[in-house]
Every structure is written in structure tokens, then in C-alpha cells.
């Protein structure tokens, strides 16, 4: 397979969030701001990359019947490592993402790529697949987070955009619903429409 296609498929063609609908729980949960989305996306990318790498290295050593438990152990180890390192060196981000970091273990995207791709392909392809899918996931989360942050808080990456009129207390009148849970579904729905439209144009 052409490695460039292998890498770029994660962004639009097979985007984990907008096209494959994998890993929607953290997607809807953490994307209250672009920064949170990016942090979660990069954490998942690291886990995806490492688990794809390790799974493709050990694939021929693993008996078929115990491959799923083995993959889960590999993924869970990397998630725990990410969690501990993040708590030690990025405590602010860790507090924001909180519960969602351990949940990467059960993110079907990670196990899905290990099972469907890394256990059948060579090391290089698996690394590239992990990176492509991971960045695609991070891209989707950042985009969704950015849309929700702009509409819901009037900021982007914490920078005030001065888009909304101010109320009598000097606070901007924003569309609060977008920061709350229903807004996640609304924003995701419209983004999926846009991405599908874009996909039809490209492919």
C-alpha cells in the first residue's frame, strides 16, 4: 500500500470520528475547548502509535486465541504510562481530561486498529497507520473543540475573539449550549455533514 495514502486516510477518507464513528465517548466528553480536544487527541495518538508498533512486532508470537487479551494488556500499559507522565508533568491538562484518560483503554479506535490493521501488517505500515489515525482523531477533536469553544465561550485556545455582544455585567452573551453535552451532539452532527460533503468532492 502506498504509505502516503496509508497516512492521509485518517484525516478525511477514514477519519475515526467523522467517518468510522469510533471513540465517540471521549469525543463528546472532552471537547469543551480546542485545547482539551488537542490534548486528548495527542494522548490517544501516542497510545495508538505505541500499541500499533508493539502489536505488529509481537503479532507472530501471539497465539490467535489469546490475541485480544494480549492487545488489551499492551494498550492498558501504554494508557497508564501516559496517565502517570501527564499527571507528573502536565498537571493542568491532566485535571481537565481527568477520567477520560483511563478510558482510552476501552476506546474502540485503539483496539480496532490493533486488531484490524497492526496484527496483519508490517511494522512500518503499522506505525504510519497509527500516526495517521491518531492525527486524524486529534484533528477531529480539535476541530470539534474549536467549534464548541468559539460558539460556547467566544474564545479559541483561551484567546478572546470578541465575537459576541456584552451583557450589562461585561460578560459576552454566548451560545452556552455548545459547551454543554447537547452542544457536543449538535456540533458533531453539523461537522459530519460538512466532512461528508467534502469527502464526496475529493474522492
Amino acid at each position, binding site marked *: 500500500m502506498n504509505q502516503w495514502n496509508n497516512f492521509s486516510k485518517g484525516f478525511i477518507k477514514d477519519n475515526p470520528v467523522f467517518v468510522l464513528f469510533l471513540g465517540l465517548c471521549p469525543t463528546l466528553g472532552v471537547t469543551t475547548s480546542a485545547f482539551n480536544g488537542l490534548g486528548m487527541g495527542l494522548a490517544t495518538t501516542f497510545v495508538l502509535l505505541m500499541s500499533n508498533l508493539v502489536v505488529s512486532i509481537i503479532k507472530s508470537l501471539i497465539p490467535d486465541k*489469546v490475541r485480544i487479551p494480549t492487545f488489551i494488556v499492551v494498550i492498558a*500499559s501504554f494508557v497508564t504510562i501516559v496517565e502517570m507522565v501527564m499527571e507528573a*508533568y502536565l498537571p493542568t491538562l491532566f485535571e481537565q481530561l481527568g477520567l477520560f484518560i483511563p478510558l482510552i483503554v476501552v476506546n474502540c479506535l485503539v483496539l480496532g486498529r490493533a486488531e484490524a490493521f497492526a496484527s496483519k501488517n508490517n511494522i512500518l505500515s503499522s506505525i504510519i497507520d497509527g500516526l495517521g489515525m491518531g492525527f486524524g482523531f486529534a484533528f477531529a477533536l480539535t476541530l470539534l473543540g474549536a467549534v464548541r469553544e468559539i460558539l460556547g465561550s467566544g474564545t479559541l485556545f483561551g484567546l478572546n475573539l470578541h465575537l459576541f455582544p456584552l451583557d450589562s*455585567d461585561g460578560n459576552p452573551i454566548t451560545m452556552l449550549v455548545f459547551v454543554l453535552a447537547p452542544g457536543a451532539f449538535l456540533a458533531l452532527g453539523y461537522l459530519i455533514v460538512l466532512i461528508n460533503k467534502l469527502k464526496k468532492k475529493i474522492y
Partner: protein
Amino acid sequence: MAKKESTFTNMVLTLFVVTLVASSALGFVYKLTKEPIEQGKLRKKNEAIRTVVPDFTNQPNEEAYSVEVEGDSLKIFPARKNGKLVGMAVSTFTNEGFSGEIKLMVGFNANGEINNISVLEHKETPGLGDKIEKSKSDWSTQFNGKNPENFKLKVKKDNGDVDAITASTISSRAYCDAVSRAYNAFKKGVKNESVE
């Protein structure tokens, strides 16, 4: 390389080796990150204490003790300057929040005036209840310099002296509840100090 067959020994061996490698890797990272994690937590606590009480020269974290208030135990961090008590930071909480527990660090001057308050943890609605945070709104500064002895820690709707956050009466009420709990702990703490 041919795929290993799924015989019993193969499966047991594989899982054993995989879990062994995984657990030793985790143990290694745990050892590596243990200290920065603990230091980060300690630093955060010290910072919270520093922002809410007047200047001090002692180690409030090491002199901390607990007092019982209405069946809950609250932690008090006494701040001293050259041995003299200048204030107390009280780590307090409330369960009345709109979405669960709110944790505050409330600082009092030695005479009982509220010096400053900082929010340690909350899950209030973004954009509404989260205005209890200093970074979101200056609502919480209305408590500074007030003595709960003659400043009723209740929102105006409940015949108190506190201006509630617009559209977040529940969060404001919860905040007041936590602060008055802290004040009760402070009174007990001061009593302890004078006995010593």
C-alpha cells in the same frame, strides 16, 4: 515466522510473559513519576494556602490539624508570622453544588475577617456556576474583607448579604454553605489556639 499455535502451554506462556513485561514497565514509570506527582500536589496545596492568607513565615502544611464541624472533619492550616498567628486557611467543601461537590480553600485573618477564597475543585455548569472561580468572574471578591460575624453568609433571596450569581442561585448558595462551614471550623480553630 509462522503463527504460534493456540495450545494451552503457548497461551499461558504468552500471557505470562506479556503481563510480566507490562507490569515491570509500569513499575518503572511509576517510580520515575512518583516524585514529580507528589511535589505537584504539594505545590498546588501550598499555592492555594498562600493565595488566601496574609504573609506568613511558618509551614502551614506541616502544622495542619483537623477539627470536627457538624460531623465532618475540616483541615485547618494555621499561618504564622514570626510565631504570631496571622490567619488560617481552611479547606472546606459543600455537597449542595448544582453538580456535586465543591471544594474551597477559605483564608481568614486572625480577627475572623475573610481574607481571600480560592476554588480547589468544582463541577458547576461552564458559563453559569463556574463564575465562582476567580479567573471567570470577580463575583467571589465580594467576600473579601467581610467578617461572617456581621456579614450573613446567605444569598439575598434567603435574607442574607451575598449577591448571588445571575442564573446560578444554587451554586451561590452552595458556595455560601462551604464558606460558613469554614467559618465554624475557624472559630473552633481559634479556640484551640488560645488554649495552647
